[in-house]
């Protein structure tokens, strides 16, 4: 059954909420009272519950099965995290309450910050960025502030080819000139090309490690040393921290700034596109420039350092990135996850994530081309290409075919350095049985695509929708619903 839009089933006279009667008072709205119809449809509670329950059933989700989106780290979201985030002491406090009334909340931020700093071997952490891309912004702002503080304006940011799209976008958004660094044939940053490009105009290198080919940048320390020697900073995209948490500390590799997607490594739910949270760990060199606000422990009190309270002791801060203190609702979840796992569990997270990815790589590299497979193990994701598929068959066909097998597709056509890339990240929360089922499905699809099974090109057949016309959507954008034109309808 199709689910109509709320605009097609609701009415402006129906409501699913009751209120006490409003006091009779003289309005203070002056001439501004809104008298036009807003056109906002309402539904009773039952109709509302049904509408969204039915809609939800048209989604795929981790709660339904393996979600092998490379670089997105779709792992299990523990339900304890949800319960904790909803405790009234966390969910129902205002960001501007007097600090004496939010000591527990400040303690959570402080405790989570301590874990992140220790796990990464860095010096400090900026907690307020709202998501990974926002964290990148934070890192670049700190780097810029540090360069300015030494009177050293620089205009270029180097970004390897295999970087996440957000990296160059962020750098450009900050007014930097972006230059690419090529990859080596084994899928890593070309160290020599990088060294050759370093110079007094380069502010920073943005590098993803483990990188988007699912490989660890073996030369990371050498790169950092070279970058530092050239007076620039190393920004690390921490989207793939899941692969190394508890086993490798980025601080030991010379990183100056790295964002951590709490919704990837630390299991806060993706929610169909957010909210995320992107704290940024900083080296000692960048720490003085960290944004406001932040939490400090003074004696047995936690203090929120913001404009009112910053005084002299953090005068070099680059300022505020968001209205309040970041994603508290994600902090409580992430801290709950971290405490649940502990140091031993987090190390096991990385171990099992990498084990699962290598198991997939080796279970399929006989039927799918693994461009870097010969060179050794991968980290937390297995990369395949479309090489060897029959003429006219693409990565897209395999991806859509997975839907009919009951799985979400892998990441497609990313990273760009591999043709028809298929990037598979199983995560550590998948059982061997689930992996085996997925491997069997992907193997059968690979065989069909190599054999040229035409039926595959029509997939998916067993989903709420067949392939959707994205071109039409972009050519004639319909972004809001409007009442059908009755005159047209009557024709």
């Amino acid at each position: 059954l199709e689910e109509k839009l709320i605009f097609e089933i609701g009415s402006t006279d129906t409501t699913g909420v009751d209120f006490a009667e409003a006091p009779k008072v003289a309005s203070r709205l002056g001439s501004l009272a809104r008298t036009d119809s807003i056109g906002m449809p309402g539904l009773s509670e039952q109709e509302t519950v049904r509408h969204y329950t039915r809609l939800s059933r048209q989604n795929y989700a981790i709660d339904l099965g393996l979600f092998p989106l490379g670089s997105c780290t779709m792992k299990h979201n523990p339900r304890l995290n949800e319960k904790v985030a909803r405790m009234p002491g966390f969910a129902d406090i205002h960001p501007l309450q007097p600090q004496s009334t939010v000591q527990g909340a400040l303690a959570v931020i402080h405790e989570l910050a301590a874990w992140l700093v220790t796990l990464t071997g860095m010096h400090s952490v900026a907690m307020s960025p709202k998501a990974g891309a926002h964290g990148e912004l934070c890192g670049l702002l700190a780097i810029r502030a540090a360069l300015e503080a030494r009177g050293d304006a620089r205009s270029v940011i180097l970004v390897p080819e295999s970087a996440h799209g957000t990296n160059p976008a962020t750098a450009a958004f900050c007014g930097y000139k972006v230059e690419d660094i090529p990859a080596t044939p084994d899928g890593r940053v070309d160290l020599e090309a990088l060294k050759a490009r370093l110079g007094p105009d380069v502010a920073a290198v943005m590098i993803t490690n483990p990188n988007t080919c699912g490989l660890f940048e073996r030369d990371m320390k050498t790169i950092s040393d070279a970058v530092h020697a050239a007076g620039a900073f190393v920004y690390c995209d921490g989207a793939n921290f899941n692969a190394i948490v508890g086993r490798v500390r980025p601080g030991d590799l010379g990183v100056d700034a790295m964002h951590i997607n709490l919704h990837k490594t630390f299991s806060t739910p993706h929610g169909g596109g957010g909210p995320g949270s992107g704290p940024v760990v900083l080296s000692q060199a960048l720490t003085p420039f960290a944004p406001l606000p932040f939490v400090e422990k003074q004696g047995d009190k936690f203090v929120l350092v913001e404009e009112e309270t910053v005084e002299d002791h953090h005068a070099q801060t680059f300022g505020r990135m968001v209205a309040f203190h970041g994603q508290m609702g994600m902090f409580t979840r992430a801290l709950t996850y971290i405490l649940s796992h502990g140091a031993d569990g987090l190390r096991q997270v990385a171990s099992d994530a990498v084990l699962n990815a290598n198991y997939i790589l080796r279970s399929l590299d006989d039927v799918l081309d693994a461009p870097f497979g010969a060179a050794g193990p991968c980290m937390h994701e297995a990369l395949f290409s479309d090489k060897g598929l029959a003429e006219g068959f693409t990565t897209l066909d395999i991806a859509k075919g997975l839907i009919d097998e009951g799985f979400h597709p892998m990441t497609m056509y990313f990273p760009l350095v591999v043709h028809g890339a298929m990037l598979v990240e199983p995560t550590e929360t998948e059982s061997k049985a689930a992996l085996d089922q997925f491997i069997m499905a992907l193997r059968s699809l690979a065989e069909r695509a190599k054999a040229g099974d035409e039926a595959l090109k029509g997939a998916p057949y067993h989903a709420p929708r067949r392939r959707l016309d994205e071109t039409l959507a972009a050519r004639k954008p319909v972004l809001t619903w409007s009442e059908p034109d009755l005159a047209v309808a009557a024709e």
Partner: protein
Amino acid sequence: MRYLPLTDTDRQEMLSVIGAETIDDLFIDVPAEARLSGTIAGLPDHASELAVERHMGALARKNLSAGEAPFFLGAGAYKHHVPASVDHLIQRGEFLTAYTPYQPEIAQGTLQVLFEFQTQVARLLGVDVANASMYDGSTACWEAIGMARRITKRGKALLSSGLHPHYVSVANTMAKFTGDALVHQAPTLDAATDIDALIASIDKDTSCVVVQYPDILGRIADLTPLAEAAHAAGALLVAVVTEPVALGAIKAPGHMGADIVVGEGQSIGVGLQFGGPYLGLFGCKQKYVRQMPGRLCGETVDAAGKRGFVLTLSTREQHIRREKATSNICTNSGLCALAFSIHMTLLGEKGLRELATLNHGLAVQAADRLAKVPGVTLLNDGFFNEFTLVLTKDAREVVRNLADKGVLAGVSLGRLFPDAPAIGNGLVVAVTETVTPEDIETLAAALEEELA
């Protein structure tokens, strides 16, 4: 461990398929000196669910939650009652644990919600189109300034003194990179807004005027003259709404000529959460849609001719355009948008108007009552559910003292504008449907005692 399903037997079997001896062998690409041989020192090991829940519960109980006290804080975040069904529905695993809907065939649930959300937001703000959400109001505000720059090719933005000071801070931070010139000063304790002053300041370099409505002091004014003045000078009007419930009672900014309307959607469905995650609302006129940042969902058809929805106009976005994107935003506030949309669906126009009327009625009662307290003066002529009281002493101290007595009295201007001591006696008080007559009396009595 409860979240890790592999058994040691599984691990051994898998290693043998891989052809490795140990898991450590899979980490050979990590330089030896960076490989940690055991767990990181100084951190505790894993803990039971019971132990973790106890620890977190103990921290939660160290906070005074809004529901436990007479509560009057606003200034960009508002306490509203969220129906229980909202939280029930957003916890459906199919919503909570889904990814961004890149595979539309199996993401129609999220996509249809986003399409409905965009329509609801556009109608609420009075604009043609709205996107699928931003991080929060403050970042949406900055994105609007950047968008105005791209449209007008001008770099000077006039920020109203009534704009939330944290939104101003965020814009200032970002402007360091982009070189935008931002003109702003702190507000004065005046019953009228600074609209006339803004009109007088518009010039040919102005990309946009950014005005908050209702403003940080709770004041409201017709934006039409400002829109006309801006347009006459080739500039855009950006309106910022931090309390969307207001738009159930007062005119929509889009209907008064605003070109871009942004807002903080937290009031509807999301909850206080100590400041985040919140929900950036972003709408604009149709003609500017291709300069808009953020995700957009659009209607289309599938191969069988059925109506369906997809993310669209992604050529504006970072994952396609890389450094030429309109914004670097990737993850947004999907689940908060869902909560907003569900709450708005429950309300409908009838409920939204009733909610707004109730908020306004209680706020008027509270303002009149509090203005009778010796030492208290009501600043506002007009307001929706928030107003400013001028006290006979620094409001920061008053707020702290009242908190010690269990009354959360409002937001002091001294905390919001530490650099503007002249307005330090101002106290911004918000009154929503969650305030009872007893709460108002408690606050009045506490203020009276404090100011005596």
